């Protein structure tokens, strides 16, 4: 069976290195929602340092939304998201709200009978389910991404399994990765697998949809100072040191606002509770804007709950 963190960078530290600096609290949507340290990366790391059993953390370890905001700010460079995913794997009982383990396993069986996809271009695009629910926007994205193939197997079951802490059969992972290995560039609309893809496909350049589109002159020129630009936070945090410079350059040329905090961390629009709109409200608080531009349709859905301002996908501006 495949281990989620098997290939994670060796330079990353584990929970025992947490010094309790609390910097992760400042960016954690779970902290904003609960104001309770137990829900934060620091809370979990400190509990593990006290040899608390994983069963005693079951209330909190599934609350993490895996936005990855904590990762770039951790001065000890602790591999926080893999810490959560591994804890989830250790728990035998999974919360029903996250999905059904049996249905994921059934998908894997079904997937095993499908022919492996052949990609004819050197660039591939992994569109998440939120984007696939909007075929006209997806089509517009594909028009902009010239010579790029939409990959039919988007690995959504793998993401769901990782969220739930279900081990992924190596055969399923191999079927997912095999066609991607021949690519030169893989574009992702949602960044949950971003770090893993970098590890699994070391010869392939992994890029976020937002980065690729904002490098297109006809997209870049249509952004304006009265826009609030919502960066898809998982990809951004997974490739923070590179992307913080990209978006900073964009800000300096376009002058639009971003969903960035003072540490230049992307504020997620959601937390674990879809009925809790505090994150989305905080993203918008005090902004003088006329339009919201999103990279991810999931962010669009979250923001629609709290504003009447026009919300457009980056590909359609």
């Amino acid at each position: 069976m495949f281990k989620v963190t098997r290939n994670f960078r060796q330079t990353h530290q584990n929970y025992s290195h947490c010094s309790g600096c609390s910097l992760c609290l400042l960016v954690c949507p779970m902290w904003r929602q609960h104001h309770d340290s137990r829900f934060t990366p620091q809370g979990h790391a400190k509990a593990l340092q006290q040899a608390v059993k994983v069963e005693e953390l079951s209330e909190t370890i599934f609350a993490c939304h895996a936005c990855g905001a904590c990762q770039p700010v951790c001065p000890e460079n602790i591999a926080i998201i893999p810490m959560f995913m591994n804890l989830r794997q250790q728990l035998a009982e999974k919360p029903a709200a996250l999905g059904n383990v049996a249905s994921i396993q059934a998908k894997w069986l079904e997937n095993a009978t499908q022919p492996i996809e052949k990609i004819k271009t050197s660039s591939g695009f992994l569109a998440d389910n939120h984007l696939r629910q909007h075929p006209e926007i997806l089509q517009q994205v594909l028009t902009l991404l010239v010579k790029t193939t939409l990959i039919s197997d988007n690995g959504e079951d793998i993401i769901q399994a990782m969220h739930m802490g279900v081990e992924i059969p190596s055969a399923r992972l191999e079927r997912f990765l095999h066609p991607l290995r021949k690519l030169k560039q893989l574009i992702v609309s949602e960044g949950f697998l971003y770090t893993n893809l970098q590890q699994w496909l070391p010869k392939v350049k992994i890029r976020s949809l937002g980065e690729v589109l904002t490098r297109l002159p006809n997209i870049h020129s249509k952004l304006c100072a009265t826009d609030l630009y919502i960066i898809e936070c998982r990809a951004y945090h997974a490739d923070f040191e590179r992307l913080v410079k990209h978006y900073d350059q964009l800000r300096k040329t376009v002058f639009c606002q971003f969903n960035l905090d003072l540490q230049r961390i992307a504020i997620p629009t959601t937390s674990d509770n879809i009925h809790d709109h505090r994150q989305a409200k905080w993203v918008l608080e005090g902004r003088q804007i006329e339009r919201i531009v999103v990279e991810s349709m999931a962010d669009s859905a979250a923001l629609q709950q709290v504003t009447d301002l026009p919300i457009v996908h980056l590909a359609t501006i």
Partner: protein
Amino acid sequence: MDIPVIEIGTLPPDPVAPDALQGIKRQQTNPSRWQGENWQAFITKLATYAIEIRQDLASCGIFVTDAGGVAYGMPHGVLIARNVEQIATLFKTAQTYRIPITVRGGGLTTEGESVAYGGILLDMTGMSQVLYIDTEKCIVRTQAGIFWHSLAEVLRRRGMDYLSAPLNLTASVGGTLGVGGIDVNSARFGCSADQAISLQVVTPTGEIVECSDTENIELFKRVILGYGQFGVITEATLKIRPFTPLRMHYFYYGSLRNTIEDLILLDKNAVCDYSGILTMMDKAITLLVAFDSEEKEQKFQQQWKNRLRGYGELGFTLRSAVYYAFHFWKLKEAWFLFNRKRCLFPELQRSEYMQDKQMFDRTVVFSRAVWNFWGGRQMIIPDLATNVDKFVTVVEKANKVCQKYFPYYALYCVGIKLHPEHQEHYELSCIPPDATELAYGCEFEPMLNHEIYSRDYIQSFKNEIYDIGVENQCSYYRFGGMMKGYIRRVFGDELVDKHLAMKRQADPNMILNRNVIF
């Protein structure tokens, strides 16, 4: 040395002898653990008020140490502060059952002041809402458990900023007002505690009181810079100002004395808006000078810049290269400086925080640097605060102590403007009693670099620094917790007894932050 077991409420005048730290007895550093008398009855009583105390290891284990990482204590239970009534009920009940309560914000103490050796740990970060902002009057009302950085995030959406706050993102407002709070603009504005206009306080007996310079004046005097002895700050009204980025200038020195003299020159003449000293080594010292406005910056460049004895980056690099060429046996030192410069300088000038040579979000930039280049699982930061006249001499003496104990360390020096109207706030605080108009503080931080030092070694180092303070009649920012043995030596019995009497009156069972000062 035998430390007698002392019941709460029967505290003798001073449980720590004036010279208690001489000989560095280990049992002196961590206070004895409270043994849990009446605990179950207390918990049962609180449950009748629907106040839930968490006693599980996952909840308590988060708070076993502070930023210092040396003190260790496990609370019996944790209460996350949610509202002022809950805290008032907690204190009333705790007085009845004689349960010690340790209050914690960001937990950035270094001497165990926010570590609970049994009893209740009151986690104030649960009260972190900004209540209102008045941009015209330039004030904010906020719950006091909020981190300064979170406050800044809210203020910045309105184009505002706080006046001064510690260069550490996770210091809490309440905790800072209780001890001081030093920023690189403290020479202009004073310490963070001086920015408080009024406070809502829960007293140790559970009363909810609003206090300020005009209302409940005595309580205000005692709570500001009171090291958490006279009440829990639950809300604060603070002065704020419109946000401005910083126009930064760095000057590099080879002499500590010259740098300090230049810093004092700038501060005394109110030449700049921000100033401070940060060393890489005592041969490579940075004087930071910054401005809010272009006019002030130009005036500095025309009238003052040439009077400073520091070099620019290139000039200092060349000077150092020549020095080490003729002192080749100090190659290791040169290599350290080279690497330090290579890593640190880009971090202080990251493009996302700089625009048109102006620095945005100084606290983020400096706090990141602090945690990445100085911070770690142990933070050892003894400090000294003096009046202007003694500062150079005291820092030079303490620098020699640092040289003796550690190969690499950093000094961080800033001026602190004193507000005459707050003179009574400053009593028994980090502000030295003989300072007028300006005081100076210096932190001495060894770079541990994953080296393992024994606790006794570290304690010896801190004691030697603090002994200089005693000799020179200084004060300290961090004189509580494990260093409280110095309080009587520095301030004298009369003043300490006066405050102890006030404490006993305010907190009959001595339950609030009981091991911190008295």
